[in-house]
């Protein structure tokens, strides 16, 4: 009897106490959203995940080369290169025959270019950024105000950068910034998308430092320089398509460029072996934004993905037995136009071997630094994936100034680049000549860095055979032949999405 009474009293006492604690079980076997975002460490881990997801997209094939360098038709496969028939995909890219590029059953199946047409991963980066921003705004324990606004700026940068990247690939894209977005939306005109991105990103520019105290973050993580470079790029793109308001866009680029050059801690390295190797390795003072890669971190780069992979041969690329010649080469007429004979330019000598050979002897030594492989190791040089470089921003600055007819300032910026290359400074006139020269200077300086094709498109020079070996006609341009086909999977569960008009045969 007493035992029972005792049991009853005890159970009533237990009942009376709070149940909240009893019901709160932290899952030990999985990490759910309610016990994540609880510390600075969680935020850092989430940011790392966001960068790595984006990197996955440029690592899934020979992406930088395909999207930014080959589509105007100057690249050819070297006869006798290993997997020659597969390498010929560069010629299909050069003919803008994108349907063949992505179709299966071709010798270049294993390039998997079909993946480039799928934008899902980009939206996963955007969702991650959106959710992270909303969590940061809700407040994360132990995070100072400075850190909070810094992380918000960094996530906003990644969001806008992803939209910018997608706009250049697909044209109009679906745009949203709310977390846990689950509704289907139609594609939004790209000019409006970039305008929204500009508006989104501008306020966060000053929340990021010019440089981090930790040198390991230099270039590898978004800094103020990264935001400025992205703002400049987005303005320049819109200036090309929203022609009525182009003065405004150029003005903003000019202002941003001036701020970057005058206040920024960035510098151009001398074009020496040491200097250039440092730039290509990454985390340098010349890097505004890059996806830093290092064999020391066991970063898994796909063998195909670096741009240099196709233009290097032994001893820059290993193993020796099947890398006696480069997979591809740039045609001599183009190279001669780029670096005219007789005009001093250290880049022509320092960055290339057999530049005019029209064969597998062509070597882009520019990407041949930081070679750590030997013997039969199958490895590319350990370079970073450079996205925005200081030189790129300086040339954009020059381009915007030239468009605004502020020729003197434009030439000053332009000559910053030429001087570093120990090339003859520009002394010509202003106007169209200067503008064209700046365009060619961008091609020279940013060779292989994934800018040329987008420069051709946004300046409409893609329709001009002087600048592009395989130009588009204006009808093709207006129907956006410069985009990639959009994967039809975008239409699944979303009837509002319309695929890219020019590539309608893509099913």
């Amino acid at each position, binding site marked *: 009897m007493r035992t029972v009474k005792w049991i009853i009293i005890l159970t009533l006492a237990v009942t009376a106490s709070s149940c909240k604690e009893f019901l709160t079980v932290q899952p030990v076997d999985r990490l759910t959203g309610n016990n994540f975002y609880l510390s600075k460490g969680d935020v850092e881990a989430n940011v790392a995940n966001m960068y790595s997801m984006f990197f996955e997209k440029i690592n899934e094939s020979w992406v930088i080369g395909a999207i930014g360098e080959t589509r105007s038709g100057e690249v050819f496969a070297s006869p006798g290169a290993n997997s020659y028939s597969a390498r010929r995909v560069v010629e299909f890219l050069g003919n803008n025959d994108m349907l063949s590029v992505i179709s299966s059953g071709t010798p270049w199946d294993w390039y998997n270019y079909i993946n480039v047409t799928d934008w*899902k991963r980009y939206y996963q980066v955007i969702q991650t950024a959106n959710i992270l921003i909303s969590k940061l705004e809700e407040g994360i324990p132990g995070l100072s105000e400075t850190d909070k606004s810094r992380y918000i700026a960094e996530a906003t940068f990644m969001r806008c950068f992803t939209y910018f990247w997608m706009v250049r690939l697909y044209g109009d894209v*679906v745009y949203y910034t709310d977390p846990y977005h689950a509704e289907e939306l139609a594609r939004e005109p790209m000019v409006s998308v970039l305008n929204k991105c500009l508006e989104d990103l501008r306020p966060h520019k000053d929340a990021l430092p010019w440089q981090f105290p930790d040198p*390991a973050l230099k270039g590898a993580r978004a800094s103020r320089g990264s935001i400025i470079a992205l703002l400049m790029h987005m303005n320049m793109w819109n200036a090309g398509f929203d022609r009525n308001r182009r003065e405004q866009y150029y003005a903003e680029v000019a202002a941003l460029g001036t701020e970057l050059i005058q206040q920024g801690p960035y510098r151009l390295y001398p074009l020496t072996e040491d200097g250039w190797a440092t730039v290509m390795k990454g985390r340098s003072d010349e890097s505004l934004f890059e996806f830093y890669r290092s064999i020391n971190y066991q970063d898994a780069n796909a063998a195909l993905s670096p741009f240099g992979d196709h233009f290097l041969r032994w001893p820059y690329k290993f193993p020796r037995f099947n890398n006696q010649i480069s997979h591809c080469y740039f045609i001599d007429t183009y190279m001669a136009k780029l670096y005219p004979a007789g005009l001093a330019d250290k880049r022509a000598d320092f960055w290339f071997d057999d530049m005019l050979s029209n064969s597998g002897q062509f070597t882009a030594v520019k990407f041949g630094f930081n070679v750590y492989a030997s013997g039969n190791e199958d490895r590319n040089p350990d370079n970073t994936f450079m996205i925005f470089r200081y030189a790129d921003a300086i040339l954009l600055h020059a381009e915007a100034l030239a468009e605004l007819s502020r020729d003197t300032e434009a030439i000053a910026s332009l000559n910053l680049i030429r001087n570093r290359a120990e090339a003859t400074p520009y002394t010509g006139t202003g106007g169209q000549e200067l503008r064209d020269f700046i365009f060619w200077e961008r091609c020279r300086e940013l060779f292989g860095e994934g800018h040329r094709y987008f420069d051709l498109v946004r300046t409409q020079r893609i329709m001009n055979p002087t600048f592009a070996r395989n130009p588009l006609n204006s009808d093709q341009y207006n129907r956006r032949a410069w985009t990639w086909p959009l994967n039809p999977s975008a239409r699944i569960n979303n009837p509002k999405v319309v695929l890219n008009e020019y590539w309608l045969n893509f099913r």
Partner: protein
Amino acid sequence: MNNMKALFTLLTAVVLLSQGHVARAQTNITVTGHVIDENRQPFGGVTVLTGRPLRALTSTDDNGNFRVSVPANAVLVFRIVGYNERSQNVGSGRTVLNIQLAPLDNQLEEVVIRGYQKRSKELSTGSSFGLSGDDVQDVPTANIEQLLQGRVPGMNTQITTGAPGFRGSTQIRGLSTVSMTGSGNQSFLQPTSPLYVIDGIPMDADRATEYGFQQQGPGISPLSLIPQEDIASIEILKDAQATSLYGSMAAYGVIIITTKRGNSPIPRVRYTHNSFIRTPPKLRETLGGNLERQLKLQQIYGNAMSVNDIWDISSTPFLSDSLNAYWNNSTNWQDYYYRTQYNQSHNLHIDGGDQLFNYKANLGYFSDQGIIRNTGFTRYNANLRMEYQPEDRRFQIIGAVTGQLGQQSVGDGIGMLQTGVASNGLSSTLLPPPSFYQAGGSHSSVLATDNDNATRLIRANLEGSYEFIQGLRASTSVSYEYESKTEDTFTPAVANNQFAEVYSYNGRTTQLYNRNSLNYSATFNDNHNLFINFFNEFRIAGRQSAVTRNERSPNDQLQGPLGYDGYFSRGGGLLDDYTDERAASFALAASYDFNKRYVVDLSYRLDGSSANGFENLYARNPAIGLRWNFDKEPFLEGLEWLDYGAIRLSWGVNIIPTGTLERIYGRFDITGNYNGQQGIGLDFDQIPNPGLQPKTNTQYNAGLDFSLFNSRVEVIYDTYFKKVENELFEQFLPNTTGFNKIFSNGAGIANYGHELFVMFRPLNLDSDFNLTFSVNGAYNKDVLLSLPDHYSGQFIRWDFDVNQYNQHVILRVGGATLANYLYVNEGVFATDADVPVDPVTGLRYQTNGQAFQAGDPMIQDANNDYYLTTEDYQRTGNSQPLFTGGASIMLNYKNFGFNLNGSFTGKRTILNNALAQRLGLMGNPFGNRVVVPLNDVDMWRQPGDQATYPYVYDYKRYGAIRPVRFDQTLWAEDGTYFKINSIVLSYMFERDLVRQWGLDNLRVYISGENLHTFSRFTGPNPENVTTMGRDVSEGYPVPRTYNVGLNIGF
């Protein structure tokens, strides 16, 4: 262990206490008497009580006699569990009493259980139905749910599988979900089983099927572990008023099972034995040997398009080389897999004690070796229970221990599905005997795979209660359950490409359960009765499982120890089903009645669960019930013919949380690596949905109960409306969201219907004949109320599976919830001229580049484009039955008994895939599959034939036309059936006779189960189909059972 220790300590104490108890007797007059039961047999063990409060005086002996000394004006009360209590005045000098006790069959005096409290049925406002333990005896079964089929109005039980140890499907009041798993023939509805409450302990009967049918571990249903011999009563709660007190888990109804307790002053031993034979149903007829060869050759000659097709015969040796002994067999492969099986069950029941202290032990063995070779189920159980209650009934303590072991083999199938058996059974009869290089691998796999699954369950339960003051009682109950589940599969080399494989699964689940309640009952002014019950429940459930899989064990003799080669270790380790779940619930119920005439029930329950997410821990379940016992109205009281009559009304809500932490907050994985920093990011399978609402079941019920002419006619009628809102809907997302799917609310279903139970006892109660006839039926209609906005009222669950079943399901708002989405078949083109011609192109109606011609199926061209494509699919049929019910006849004459039970299911669409597959066997005469006689099939054979089924022998056009494609309404048949579930014939030996043999009683019986199904369905069995109404020929057929059994009492 602590629980066990405490239990034994308490039991010892209880036993000691009872030793000190001495019945005091007064010495006024001596009364003797004789008590008999309803069969006029002496009734031993009946407690005789007297006084106020009641005290037990004695119990009747084995011959039903008693002798007591009581005051002259005393009232004697005779009491035994399961029978009406009877009181008899001793006054006027009666010293010899003859008492007959009647079993509890008057519904109103039954006791029902509500919110774990016993209540008089007369006062219950909800809709429920009771069965006694006797209803589930005499037919041996592993799963008692099968025996409830057709007994309970509104409960739809379908024995969808004959696999021993598995269970079919049970739904109370229609459809409660739109979630489906699997594809093709293996599409199943997510099970929505009622909550089982066994002796006050809730048990989730769905847990074995939680992960669909792909789950790992033994799929032994927890219901298969309950021995039928130990069941005293079963009660099924249907409406929300009755179930809401059981909370979220009870949203699909509650089945309360009470096991037997001891009740005999001298220990009784009862032994039950069944010997039964299970026989497979009629197998598919096949053409053997030369007949097969001739048919295939005729088919080729008759349908070849060029001489090359004829030449192909010479490169197909089993067709051309009839003289070669190697190709000259005639083997019906089905015979290798199906068998008639003899089984046994034994059950020993020991009980003793009286109201003060009683105990029972039930020891059982049940074996069902399966009609498919290499499958089977065996159960061992030991249930013990002890109860102590002094006669003032202020204090009560109950202890129980249950140990159950279920052992099962599923061969190389997964129990319900026996794909290996099904496909091997279709092998050509001409093929040589099983060998390494022929039917070999899969044939050996079916027969030689060594599969041993076991579920071992131990549960200890301790319950105590105490009445503080008159009417106020507190009670508490604690139980702990530990279940260990293992599966060991050894696939010998011969069955697995020359290398043996070992697979082993090891899992456990635990549940700690505690309930505390406080209830108060009082009567004011003799008219107003009040009952208040407050209780809370706590539950901690845990689960963990792991697997090991190793390929290429050195030989067939070495099944372990494992770990010989890391390279061939094929994964293993912990599975992702780890669970640590806590639940806490609080419930308050109040019941008021005025003179037992007007009853009001109010209840409210809060359910908290750790799975709900931390912001919204509690789900709230309110309910209201009203009852009017109109027979107690003064103006009706004089009616002799009205035994009782009542009208019930109820409303209640059951809320089922569907939000898991993962669904609400998302899941983060350690993935990605950037700049030397480990990344952690979202899992992009499902998007977190912070606004996820719990599923809500709202139910209205109105009922009418009455009994006429001294229980000759009893009627229970219910009508209800049940609305399921916020049904969890797996919605697939556009890829611009980055995620695959979202779990959203949006979907809703309504069910409404009627349930009727009628019982007649046409014969005079005093006659030697005793006939009870009962029939029950339910009509349930379900309607899809809503879908997530996104879908504009229609959602098609496309099902393009590899086997080309393509039997899609369409959900359309406003219609029956689960309809098929198929081509509409309108017959067969009798002649080529019947094929429509496109007036624009002049081409005949075509598909896959092949024009239709005579003998092809006439499939409706819904969009009139003269081309058969997926756009011609149409909504058709309803896979859920509209009518369910059953009937039973019970006839007793003296010691003979006859009992027949039947059940019916009406108006549902079944897709006869079995027939489609049978006809499809003819598609390729060069293939290595068997052929079947089609004489009985109304098939097109020559131009002009008006036939039901298309011509299947045209093998050259077969691939393009696919005449017997699964996705057409040709296979949609009405699945209405009436089944004779069981017939029992029994004989009870005269007690005087068996006494001479030293027995207390002896009863023998023969019974049969699943004896005959009346149906127009042309497939094998209209019940042996999936919950989505597809006839699975890979399924496990439901056997027929013949049984001889006996009960012996010592």
